[in-house]
């Protein structure tokens, strides 16, 4: 074997070829991942005359967005559905935080009877099919006057967001050294003060991240608003699908609706990319 200088030459070529092959494979996958997005955006900018053509030369128009938002004379209620999504998602996040933060703290800092069972039950909410409770909920909601109301939607949507909040915040609380709180107690803080002035500020990045993620989960949920609302509290995702059901479908309008329904979660996701893995996997994988 020659010592060093001769070997790299063929190796370098092979390396170069492999790297370009890697790039090519990645680009193919990303074309698959991003072309549908590009397609829907382009379709949403087409005029009625252009929508059934697939060629790309067109003059982009924002008319579809204006129509969807009801800014012209079509009288679309899309804006109301958008607001409805916003109200119910924010509401669900707030309720989840109010209930979830104490629970997460208790599960991270204390070992008490049934704590693991309770945590496991919350995790099972994440896996259980939402359909299982739809019929009884619909019946109960009709009786209680909660059907098709924002309050009713917030109450069910936080079933989706609460387990997320509890599981992720527990992992944030666990990562925070308990010594910091102990030091605060030695300094004469009460337990409550130690929690509000030391623990809570330290996990606040986690709380911010989990709130945005919970918002995305609530916004993207389909089955609850689909079955438990009709007009008043209907959300954007449901109404976008309903667009497709009409007998005179205007595809460019549907596309504009889809883009608008997809935008808020996408923007928020970019803000919390650092925490996404932990959030999506319920803290089971730490990034």
């Amino acid at each position: 074997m020659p010592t060093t200088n001769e070997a790299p030459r063929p190796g370098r070529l092979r390396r170069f070829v492999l790297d370009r092959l890697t790039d090519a494979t990645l680009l193919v996958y990303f074309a698959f991942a991003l072309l549908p997005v590009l397609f829907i955006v382009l379709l949403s900018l087409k005029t009625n005359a252009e929508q059934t053509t697939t060629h790309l030369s067109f003059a982009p128009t924002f008319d579809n967005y204006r129509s969807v938002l009801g800014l012209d004379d079509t009288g679309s209620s899309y804006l109301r559905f958008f607001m409805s999504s916003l109200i119910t998602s924010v509401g669900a996040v707030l309720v989840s935080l109010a209930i979830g933060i104490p629970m997460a703290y208790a599960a991270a800092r204390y070992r008490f009877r049934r704590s693991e069972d309770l945590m496991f039950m919350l995790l099972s909410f994440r896996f259980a099919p939402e359909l299982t409770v739809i019929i009884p909920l619909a019946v109960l909601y009709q009786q209680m006057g909660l059907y098709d109301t924002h309050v009713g939607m917030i109450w069910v949507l936080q079933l989706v967001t609460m387990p997320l909040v509890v599981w992720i915040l527990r992992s944030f609380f666990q990562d925070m050294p308990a010594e910091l709180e102990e030091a605060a107690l030695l300094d004469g803080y009460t337990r409550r003060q130690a929690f509000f002035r030391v623990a809570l500020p330290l996990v606040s990045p986690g709380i911010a991240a989990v709130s945005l993620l919970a918002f995305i989960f609530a916004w993207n949920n389909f089955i609850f608003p689909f079955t438990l609302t009709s007009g008043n509290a209907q959300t954007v995702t449901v109404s976008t699908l309903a667009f497709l059901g009409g007998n005179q479908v205007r595809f460019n309008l549907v596309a504009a609706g889809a883009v608008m329904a997809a935008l808020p979660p996408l923007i928020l996701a970019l803000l919390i990319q650092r925490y996404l893995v932990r959030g999506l996997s319920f803290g089971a994988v730490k990034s």
Partner: protein
Amino acid sequence: MSVAVPSSTRTERGSPAPGPDTPRVSRRRRALRPYLLAVPAVLLCVGILYPFFLGASYTLFDFSAQNPDPDMVGAENYTTILTSAAFWNSARVTAIYAIGATVVETVLGVGIALLLNRSTILGRMLERVVIIPLMVAPVVAAIMWRLLLNPEVGWVAPIAGWIGLTHTGTDSPVAAMVWTIVVDVWIFTPFVTVIALAGLSSLPSSPFEAAAVDGAGWWMTFRRLTLPMLWPYLLVAVIFRLMDSVKMFDVIYSLTSGGPGSATTSMSIQAYQEAITYARYSRGLTYMLLLWAVVFVVSMILVRYLRRIQSRAAGV
């Protein structure tokens, strides 16, 4: 800890509160504190368990729009359903969809993660956009794909035309199943990718250096080192993907509504149709409860296995 990867950080376990407490607070109140903190969450659990058990009890009745005064029928709903062809069809559809989607997503997701992990400029750029499909609501994603597949406005037909395919869309049973899986793969492969990337970045480098010194090839290194060390992470992704696709409703409903015929009628679609479309509430609820039982049992087994693997990986 049910699924959390054991972390090295010390947490207070075993004893109630850390450190000295204000003397005014009695020992008893201190022991009570975690329960007080958990009360709202417990109430929430009860609040959802009530409708759940209410629904479960309806499965023993014959309750439908035609029969709003339910009669007790015992296990009749279960026997009718478990002996019906529709149930076994939906079970088969669910299995094909869930296993197919999970396998493709895992293989593809890990593959993309390995390619991205080489930290070229292109890789770093693509890493930022990889999650886009995952953040779009599944319904909205399905709508996008319905438009893509639409022969009038979509891009699938012309692209298929270039490579000589004439049959596109979801009008044949096989194509419908394939497209629903493709859409699931489109949305959720990034989920596996981001978790695999997080796992890859946390692997220690010394075993790989040792393997390189020993002259192990790429495949050998992957099979004997990367994959086993990555498995605790991947398993989390597999569990989430499998459970979500077993119960998947949004994508299938908005893409094919279970059709053509019953080619993509999964258990959740079947349950929905029985309960909502035909207003046979008890029948639908029985389907839903069976679906729940499947998800519950499978997730229990998988989560147990995960805990074992993770404690072994943590060296306990």
